[in-house]
């Protein structure tokens, strides 16, 4: 639903280290964009600035036509999969995925429908009632994916979303990410991969 325009963004962390140095990226509405770079080059930092979790040292972050430098994360309407997933350990898989919908006050029937659909796509339906602590790494990652794709967000940010699942699921998730990017209303996917990490050259390669 919205373009993201990154203008001369600089990020210096507390210790003065310039993690992101004067980056400008223009992502069109509906565009599918992949950031690739060596470990520690600032991919996560950039995504966290877009989503509003990290202060921007200088430059402008535009979403749609609005400058969002000082907008709280919850008011930016972006979905993100964290690099380390950040699941809610006290909630079941179902409730983890339903969490953003509940916060948005969606009716129960809609929540149920969306969560079931996402669980099916991500091959999580048989784990609905389980807690994240009992899942494998790849399953956790898929829960994190589910939590993002159920949303009706303006943009979807995935921090290394395909580093864990096996080949079959990777294909499925790739399709899902593209579908999310192409579906009307979800005009925009910003994805972030890491070919250097050695996790998954195949998947990123086919995307690049």
């Amino acid at each position: 639903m919205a373009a993201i325009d990154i203008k001369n963004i600089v990020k210096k962390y507390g210790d003065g280290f310039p993690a992101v140095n004067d980056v400008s990226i223009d992502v069109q509405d509906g565009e599918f964009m992949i950031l690739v770079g060596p470990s520690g080059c600032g991919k996560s930092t950039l995504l966290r600035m877009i989503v509003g979790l990290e202060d921007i040292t200088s430059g402008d972050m535009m979403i749609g036509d609005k400058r969002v430098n000082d907008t709280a994360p919850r008011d930016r309407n972006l979905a993100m999969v964290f690099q380390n997933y950040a699941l809610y350990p006290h909630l079941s898989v179902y409730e983890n995925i339903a969490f953003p919908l509940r916060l948005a006050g969606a009716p129960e029937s809609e929540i149920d429908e969306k969560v079931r659909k996402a669980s099916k796509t991500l091959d999580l339906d048989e784990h609905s009632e389980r807690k994240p602590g009992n899942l494998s790494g790849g399953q956790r990652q898929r829960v994190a994916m589910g939590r993002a794709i159920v949303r009706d967000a303006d943009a979807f940010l995935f921090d290394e979303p395909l580093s864990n699942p096996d080949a079959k699921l990777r294909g499925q998730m790739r399709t899902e990410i593209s579908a999310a990017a192409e579906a009307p209303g979800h005009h925009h996917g910003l994805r972030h991969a890491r070919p250097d990490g050695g996790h998954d050259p195949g998947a990123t390669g086919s995307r690049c």
Partner: protein
Amino acid sequence: MRADGRQGKDRSRHWIGFIAIPVWCLLPVAWIVSLSFKSLEETAAGSPQFLPKDFTTSNYGEILKNDDFTRALINSFGIAMIATVLSVVFATPAAYAIARLEFKGKRLVLSMAPAIAMFPVVSLVGPLFDMWRTFGLFNTWPGLIIPYMTFTLPLAIWTLSAFFREIPWEMEQAAQVDGATSWQAFHKVIVPLAAPGVFTAAILTFFFARNEFVLTISLTSTTSSRTVPAQMSFFVGPDPFNPPYAQLATASVIVTIPVIIIVLLFQRKIVAGLTSGAVKG
């Protein structure tokens, strides 16, 4: 072969520990329970046996009719409860700050907390005795609650900050991205994860406060604020020539049983690592 042998030995050692430690810990408890069901005559007899000869519950009936004891029970519970609630209420934000923020003196607070909690209470008694009489706090509930907090508060801060450091705070950010206000992120995500820690800290401080003896024996003079440990030392019993073993044992059982039940009930909650599975790990 050698590996096997070693393993066998390890396992038998394991089992010895498995049996010996509980027996070592529980035998005195079993003895107290058994004592509490013995008659006065039996406890006065020279050669004791483990099981009561004639099983009686009269000790329980008697002690619960003893107004001094029930009064002490109320004092104990009330004083320990208030000290616990106050400690946890103050310690929670303090521990939160220690776990989340960088500030000057953080290390000092962290290293001083256990030191203060372990400070020998005897050294406080003399000055407190004089001060409390001047301030009118001698033999009152606040007169015990205030000094109790000198060890329950640092104890609570110490345990809570250890717990809070284990919480993956990134989930709070995930919640914000998911559309939560700060308050929603706090009470839907942080509180459920912090609750077991708060609960553990509360139980710990409650036990410490309830077991305290030196202060309560020194800073109280009547049953109006004397707690159970002190009150028990005043037990005379019906027979002035024999110590009231059975009654003491009964009193011990009465104050211990609720504790054991609470711990057993909530043990899983306390131990369960609720935060596992939040992050990649």
